[in-house]
């Protein structure tokens, strides 16, 4: 790969703006998510973190600015198409299908990834390679025991794991984790942290989080978002020492 190609690899957001009527929820955002990066997006509530996720994944069209994937402009690309290109997210509030099992969820994700979602005359579980891939993901995320139980009967921490499993099944290149540990009792969050640690190396991961322990143990780069704009960004050490950031989180330490 030429130097230029290497530069362009991964996701790039340039001058991204989003306005709702008179309200600006994202202003002049510039973010790079190269392959292998581990970035955390932090900021107070209402700062626009989830809006950012929506803009990147294509659910929200930007008011102006561009989004590039590997040098290609994908600003106009639909959300479903972006998933096919490898931009995957997990949801802050679990959006699982209540009556389905983890295995069924992962199977569904793999089937869709492989464009088998239009097959009408085979049974959903008839594809042997799909099944074995699902099994290995379940294994990887230590969900094997609960693989065939309805997700609404699983503890919340396991449900969040299923979200991550689904994301992995889609073979992402850019992964957005929206508060993966949110709402998970501290006893169960260890599994999630482990799962995040063992994500593929060449994956670009952006994690939106409030849990500072998780952020500092995971991220190699931190972006601080306040009122829709980037306050500052840098390595964890720099951010931790930055007085503006500390002021922001004074009083929020109870959460971390």
């Amino acid at each position: 790969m030429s130097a230029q190609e290497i530069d362009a690899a991964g996701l790039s957001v340039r001058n991204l703006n989003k306005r709702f009527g008179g309200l600006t929820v994202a202003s002049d955002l510039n973010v790079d998510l190269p392959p292998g990066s581990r970035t955390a997006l932090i900021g107070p509530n209402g700062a626009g973190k989830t809006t950012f996720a929506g803009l990147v994944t294509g659910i929200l069209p930007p008011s102006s600015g561009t989004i590039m994937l590997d040098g290609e402009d994908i600003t106009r690309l639909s959300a479903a198409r972006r998933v096919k290109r490898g931009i995957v997210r997990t949801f802050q509030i679990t959006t699982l299908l209540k009556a389905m099992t983890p295995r069924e969820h992962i199977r569904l994700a793999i089937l869709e990834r492989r464009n088998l979602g239009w097959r009408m005359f085979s049974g959903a579980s008839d594809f042997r390679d799909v099944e074995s891939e699902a099994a290995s993901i379940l294994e990887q995320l230590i969900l094997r025991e609960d693989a065939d139980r309805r997700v609404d009967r699983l503890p919340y921490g396991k449900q969040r794991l299923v979200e991550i499993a689904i994301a992995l099944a889609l073979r992402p290149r850019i992964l957005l984790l929206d508060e993966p540990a949110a709402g998970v009792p501290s006893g169960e969050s260890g599994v999630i942290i482990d799962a995040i640690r063992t994500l593929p190396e060449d994956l670009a991961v952006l994690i939106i989080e409030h849990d500072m322990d998780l952020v500092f143990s995971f991220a190699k780069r931190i972006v601080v978002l306040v009122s829709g704009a980037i306050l500052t960004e840098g390595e964890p050490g720099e951010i931790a020492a930055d007085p503006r950031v500390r002021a922001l989180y004074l009083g929020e330490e109870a959460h971390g």
Partner: protein
Amino acid sequence: MDLSSLKSRLVVDLGLLAASIAMFFVLPDQLGFATRVITTVLFVLSLDLVLGYAGIPTLGHAAIFGIGAYAAGLYALHVSSEPLSGLLVAGIAGAVIAFLTGLLLLRVNKLTLVMISIAMAQIALEIANQASGLTGGADGLGGFELGPVLGLFAFDFYGYTAYGYALAVTWLLFLVMRRLMASPFGISCQGVREQPRRMEALGVSVYWRLVAIYTIAGSIAGVAGGLATQTTQFVSLEVLGFTVSAEALIMLIIGGTGRLYGAIIGTILFMSAHDIAAGIAPANWLFVIGALVIVVVLVTPRGLLSILPWGSR
């Protein structure tokens, strides 16, 4: 007994099959009624696909049924009295209408969808009414005879052939639908109903998935309409009425959505009750149905299938 296991499904299937075949011998004078029940079952099954599985809240499904009914009638009258090709025509008519209307219908939010579906059905009714030269208007379309099924089974006066024909077609399509809903496509449609955002996040183009299942269900509704016309050798404006859509909805909800069997049971129960009560007094029947629906919704919102011990998933 749990309907998602193969063994119990086999038992229920065989039971239903046996019961329906037994009709030939046990209640031969009720075959006309039984045939109507079966064509309605097919219609309600197609509604289950749309509503129960895909979550598309349409109150205009009767329009597609009616168009299939008229298509089969006109085909028999003007083109050929061969029944199977007539069914094919009805199915295609249903699919085409469903596809075209689905393109619009599936773009709007659910509440608007309900409204537009009602409007579309009314338009169909009005058009059929106005085009009375073609459709016979309020008098209906009749005077056509159907040739023997597969060249072998002629439609007889007692209704044996009609019943067997309707039963065979419906049974076949039921198996097809079951296969369909267990396929990757079918599963994805259920996902779209429950969590459209999640499905989109899996790379699914929700809109086209819904258009597809709506079209498929439309073709089945068309076939149901065609079957109704062929087995009664008559079609009139009622097939397009709002009451048909409303009653189908009630039958489906009573039986339980999203499992296909609910459509079957709900239809059988509703139509049997109607048949018994209609003899007593039509106005009271409406009252009973209204009260029944309210009770069902308040007490067992998931339909009868969910309170029976063998209905849960």
